[in-house]
């Protein structure tokens, strides 16, 4: 009994200290990735398509509550698709609306890619040149659909954005699709497509959030 009493006395200070215990540094260094949403669409012989220029159409939208531990959001599209007449399929990701349509909205990344010619905030994720069938006279024309020589079915679309967010905040994630209208001009078949698409919205605690390298 005496030993027990002594033990309690000795450890009593620890009760009021909220002493931390210990865990693996490797386990703590990176916050876990939380999958907030996993959805698919157009797995039923339908397609998401538009002939419209930027800002295009709302191709996917999902409202999420970011966990209070996380400061970085990841938005992923994984799909297949094609385009007509050599148009590029342009994609953008935004939080709470396309900033050209909704003043409070913002692009997941407002920057620009390479020589695709997509506006800031947009990326060309599918593009096949509408090749010159004079040069390739005698070869196959019309692609393998009815959308011109550049209509090739199908090609992989895979992209993931990261974006810094306030922990515990609520956002409507949106992916938009637009046509480059570079396949022959307005009035022609400018459709761009995707189908068999998966969408994922994830979050994590990341040092500094989504930062420029």
């Amino acid at each position, binding site marked *: 009994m005496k*030993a*027990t009493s*002594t*033990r*309690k006395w*000795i*450890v009593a*200070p*620890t*009760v009021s*200290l*909220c*002493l*931390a*215990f*210990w*865990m*693996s*540094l*490797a*386990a703590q260094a990176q916050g*876990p*990735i*939380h*999958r907030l949403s996993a959805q698919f*669409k157009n797995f039923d*012989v*339908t*397609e*998401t*398509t*538009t002939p*419209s220029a930027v*800002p*295009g*159409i*709302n191709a996917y*939208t*999902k*409202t999420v*509550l970011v*966990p*209070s531990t996380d400061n970085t959001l990841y938005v992923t599209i994984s799909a297949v698709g094609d385009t*007509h007449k050599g148009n590029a399929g342009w994609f953008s990701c935004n939080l*709470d*609306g*396309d900033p050209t*349509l909704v003043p409070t*909205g913002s692009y997941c990344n407002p920057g620009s890619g390479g020589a695709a010619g997509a506006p800031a905030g947009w990326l060309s994720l599918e593009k096949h040149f509408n090749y010159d069938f004079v040069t390739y006279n005698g070869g196959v024309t019309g692609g393998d*659909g*009815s*959308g011109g020589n550049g209509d090739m079915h199908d090609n992989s679309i895979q992209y993931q954005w990261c974006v810094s967010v306030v922990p*515990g905040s*609520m956002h*409507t994630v*949106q992916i*938009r699709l637009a046509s480059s209208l570079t396949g022959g001009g307005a009035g022609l078949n400018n*459709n761009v*497509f995707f*189908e068999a698409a998966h969408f994922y919205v994830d979050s994590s605690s990341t040092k500094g959030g989504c930062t420029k390298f």
Partner: protein
Amino acid sequence: MKRVVSPIVLLLSAGIVALPSFVLAQQQQSTTVVPPAVGRASRSDVKGACPKSAVRFENDRLSVQAEDCPFDWLLEEISKNAHVAIITNAGLRSQSASIQFENVSLEEGLRRVLKDHDSFFFFGGDKRSPSRLKAVWVYSNGEGTGVVPVPQEFWASTKELEGRLKDAEPKVRANAIEAIIERKRDKARAEVFNALKDANSEVRIRALSAALNSGVDLPTQSLVDLLVHDKSPKIRFLSLDAMADSPEGETMAEYALNDPDPHVQNAAHEILEHLGRPTSTPGTSQSPETNQPSQMTETKDRN
């Protein structure tokens, strides 16, 4: 939003087998905590094994005379005399120690005793007194590499966590309800219901989020009440989202179309669109195609 790995698993994988000393002391379970390890030889037996040994702590100075003594006995004596908690893992029990020094500071003395081990020294203080050494964690050499402190929620007893549900600090209450839900799962319903009445919205949000992600079976009527009455849009969103696939999902989504918060409205639109009832989505997209859904999704026809 589920945790990838249980914190308990993480603790075990880190080689940590000791539990907080005060918990085990009160529960009288076998423990590796020093002072005394319950279930081992009595102190008198151990003392008999090294009769010429002595540990003194006077005027904040430590003196040790130990000759081939059980290592955990030595740490126990230092702990008892210097009033510092020393927590070890099981692997140290079988080791013996021989060391002598006189009249050194507690920190220096422990450093000498633990020179062949990994250790963490915890210095704590308060506004009324200077910081002092309060606890030491001891590991075998190399075992301490790559471990960091974890919050009390990971190792406190469930009874202690339940006590914190009434803490004055909202963050403490939120951490406690999350930890309780993770441990008790569906058996935590009573605690969840109480937490959902908390005056602080962050406590309610974290409680509901944890409950929904841990499989706590909340009645639909409770979710409806939250959607209709809770002042926090995040609570209303979570409750609506939880009902999305239920028979009430469509009705509640229609109700939420008129929610004052645009994100809750957006979630309602998403649910209705999923149910084959696309609507224009205020606050996000006002594109022409949104109003012409037939142009968005077409049946494939040699495109």
